[in-house]
């Protein structure tokens, strides 16, 4: 630590002012650069005239998905989405390694906040909200073909339902300490991790199955799910979305659990904005 000499602070103030002055310049530069962009909403802009007409005009006939975003996400750009799902999974694993599994401990600690902060009102509201949130998450997943939705959105919703339960009812393994009568519901950290693994494996598995039946990786047309190729692709897309759902929901659970465990075990105070020495 040591006391820093005053001149250094003066220098750092000057540097900060100089740094702050750079940002209006950056903003001006960005806006000037954007003047060259096509007009907002221009139907003839390059972004709207190259690949996207193909997606818009052929997606429904080729993939059976009325929601073109889902068609592009799970079918045309399946590789990309596999990579994104792997990134999400890797973030969950990374957090687990950094916080909960440090020191090569054989058993994962019980997940959850150190203190559940559910009051009667929070408890009652959560009992009503959580089932609705979880059900809506599954609806968003299954309806992703024909309405806004899909695996990512549904997975995050499901994960937020899990977080809500953890926040209000406390650790999953310790009987919901604050409300002994509350049925403990929700996956443990280990189960969340397994959900995420099952998701990413299922995604790659569907891709490999397409190869096994003579197609290319993640090109679902060859899967033996029916005679209509668009319908086969629709079913495979639903499988992909379900796999993404599992990965995202599991990873959100892993992230929340590992961070709460890490804060508890590393003695980081929860609740107050400032730590004791800050």
């Amino acid at each position, binding site marked *: 630590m040591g006391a820093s000499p005053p001149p250094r602070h003066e220098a750092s103030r000057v540097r900060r002012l100089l740094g702050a002055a750079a940002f209006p310049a950056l903003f001006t530069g960005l806006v000037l650069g954007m003047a060259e962009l096509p007009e907002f909403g221009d*139907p003839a802009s390059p972004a709207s005239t190259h690949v996207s007409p193909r997606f818009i005009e052929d997606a429904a006939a080729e993939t059976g998905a009325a929601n073109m975003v889902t068609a592009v996400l799970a079918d045309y750009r399946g590789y990309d989405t596999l990579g994104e799902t792997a990134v999400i999974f890797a*973030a969950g694993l990374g957090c687990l390694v950094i916080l909960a599994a440090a020191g090569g401990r054989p058993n994962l600690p019980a997940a959850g906040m150190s203190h559940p902060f559910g009051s009667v009102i929070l408890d009652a509201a959560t009992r009503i909200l959580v089932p609705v949130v979880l059900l809506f998450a599954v609806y968003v997943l299954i309806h992703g073909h024909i309405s806004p939705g899909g695996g990512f959105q549904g997975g995050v919703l499901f994960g937020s339902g899990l977080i809500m339960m953890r926040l209000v009812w406390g650790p999953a393994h310790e009987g919901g300490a604050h409300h002994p009568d509350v049925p403990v519901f929700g996956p443990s950290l280990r189960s969340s991790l397994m959900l995420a693994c099952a998701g990413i494996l299922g995604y790659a598995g569907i891709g490999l199955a397409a190869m096994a039946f003579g197609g290319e990786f993640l090109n679902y047309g060859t899967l033996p799910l029916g005679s209509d190729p668009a319908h086969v692709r629709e079913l495979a897309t639903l499988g992909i979305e379900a796999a993404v759902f599992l990965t995202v929901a599991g990873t959100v659970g892993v992230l929340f659990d590992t961070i709460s465990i890490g804060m508890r075990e590393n003695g980081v105070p929860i609740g107050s904005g400032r730590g004791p020495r800050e």
Partner: protein
Amino acid sequence: MTTYAFAAALFTIGLAGMALLPNLLRKLLAMNVMQVAVIVFFVSLAFKDGATVPILGQGGAPVAAEFMNPLPHTLMLTAIVVSVSTTGLALGLLVRVRSRFETLNERRLLDRLR
């Protein structure tokens, strides 16, 4: 144009926050603001005058001019969830930093590392 300028303003605010705020947690939140700026920018590129959301209704064969570009929406959909999980990972790292150095203040951290 206004939307682009809005995205540029958000981006600048986020970058300035990352550079100027002393607390690592605030830097992380500023990074999220910057990510939102990129998302706003991409989604605004998908907009077409007179077009609707890229979900097929009951009508006949789809015409490209009637629907917005689905590609930026797809890219940003994954980007949002990826930014959620990378934020989670960064929070995990911050917990470790906080427990080891008992501060998240950048200058104090540098002092302790010296």
